[in-house]
Structure formats: structure tokens, C-alpha cells
């Protein structure tokens, strides 16, 4: 198997020293914070009534990107194709969901 271990240009740049957990812990803290804010916005009615839904949706979207780019190790530089397809999935998904909601 090792004979097959090929490294392409992208991987050669990666740092051989293992990444630290600090980034992930920070990201996790942020997620918990965003979740708390979302729950608070709904339960405590601190946000103006009409703005609650867009507000919590934005928070959810931020969380998705946190997951994608920290936990799931997606990064734009090395995985351009992956990022393109994931974004396409999100866009088409959003269109489907909104269309079904509005037109269905």
C-alpha cells in the first residue's frame, strides 16, 4: 500500500505537525454560544417579533459554516472542487426548500 502513497502538490504544503485542538474548542464554544442566543431570541423575546426568524436562520447558517470549515476540515485552497459541490448542494437545497414552502 505504501508504494501507492502519492502526495500531490496540495498535500505537500500541509504541515506535518498535528493541528492543535484549540481551534476546535474555540469553534465549539462559538457554536454553543450561537445556539444559546438562538434559543434566547425565541424564548425571551428580546429580538423584535418580525426579525426573529431571519435572525435565527442567520445563526444556523453561521453554525453550518463553522462545522464545515473547522470540524469538517474543508478549506477553500486545497479542496476547491469539494467546496464548489457542497455550496451547490446548499444553494440547490435552499431553492428546493423555499420553493416547496412558497409554492407548495
Amino acid at each position, binding site marked *: *500500500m*505504501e508504494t501507492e502513497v502519492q502526495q500531490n502538490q496540495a498535500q505537500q504544503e500541509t504541515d506535518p505537525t498535528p493541528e492543535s485542538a484549540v481551534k476546535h474548542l474555540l469553534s465549539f464554544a462559538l457554536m454553543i454560544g450561537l445556539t444559546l442566543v438562538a434559543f434566547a431570541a425565541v424564548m425571551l423575546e428580546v429580538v423584535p417579533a418580525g426579525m426573529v426568524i431571519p435572525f435565527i436562520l442567520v445563526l444556523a447558517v453561521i*453554525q453550518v459554516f463553522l462545522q464545515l470549515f473547522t470540524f469538517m476540515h474543508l478549506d477553500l485552497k486545497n479542496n476547491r472542487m469539494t467546496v464548489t459541490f457542497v455550496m451547490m448542494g446548499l444553494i440547490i437545497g435552499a431553492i428546493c426548500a423555499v420553493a416547496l414552502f412558497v409554492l*407548495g
Partner: protein
Amino acid sequence: MSAQVEHKGTQAHLPPHPEKATMESRNKVLGFWFLIGAETVLFACLFGTYLALKDSTMGGPSTEELYQIPMVALATFILLTSSLTSVLGVLGIHRNNIKQVKLWFWVTVVLGAAFLGLEIYEFFEYVHEGHTFTSSAFGSAFYTLVGTHGSHVLFGITWIFCLLIQLSRRGLNMETAPKLYVASLYWHFVDVVWVFIFTVVYLMGKVG
């Protein structure tokens, strides 16, 4: 014909990023990302269906009466934490530290099971209140969306559980490491879907 290829991968030779080291593992990870893309659209369609039908309660309890936010919040924190633990497991792979990998993935499985237990309990509660799969269009759409997510959680913990067995039998090598990496991607995806479920289903259901 030709001889079977012998497997020589041992812990000592594990490269820093096993998920990118061979063509096979790169294919696996990329293919899995595509699957995630497809699943995103699948869930989006179920979300759309739910949104279109959520007000058709046919006299049953409405979203506002039904949902219990404290329980949802608990489930959310459990699942978010499990997402962190699975990424810590992946860091273990990158450090070639099998103990760390085992520990964090076991925690992930346990948290996943706890989440699933909460969800099943929640469903029982709802059925008790007259909100069932067949009681209304709302009921059907709700259980289909949340249930599909639940079945993903179930599949995820079973999968990681199987991989943990493989891990203890064969050690951390070029075969098990990419599998675990992919499983953790799956787990994060399940988490991402839940972020939308608690936002779109539960919180928006409370806003009305």
C-alpha cells in the same frame, strides 16, 4: 493469476493525514463529500415539505402547543458536544494516537445514543398528546423529517461502533483511519442537519 497484495500498513507508517495519503482514501473522502451534498438536497426537500404542511394540524396540537424547548435544548447540546468529540477523535488520528481515537469516538457513540434516547422519548410524548404519523399532514411531515434525521443518527452510531470494533482488532492503519475520518464527516453532517431542525422546526414552531 497474481498473488494477493499483502497488507503492510502498520501504526508506525501512518502518514500525518491518512485521509489524503492514498488515491483510495482521497477517492473515499471526496465521494463522501458528494454524498453529503446529495443528502443536503434530500433533507432540504423534507424541510420544504414540512414547512408547507406544518400548519395543517387538522385539529391536533399545533407546533406552539406541542414542542418542549428545554428537551430540544438538551438534545441540541448533546449532539453539538458529540460533534466536538468526534473531531477530537480525528485529531487523534492525525497524531497517530490510538487511545485518543478510541476514547473520543466511544464518547461520540454514547452521546449519540443519549440523543437518540431523548428523541424516542420525545416521540412517545407527542404520540401521547395525539400527534401521530397519520393524524394529519403536519404529523406525517414532522415525523418524516425528524425521523429521517433520527435514522441517520442511528446509522451513524452503528457505523462508528463497527469501526471501533475494527479499530481494536486491527489497530490504527491506512485502512481504518480513512474510514473513521469519513464516519466523523458523516457525524458532523448529522449535526448540521440538526442545527437546522432545531432552528426551523422547533424554534420557528414556537415563533409561530
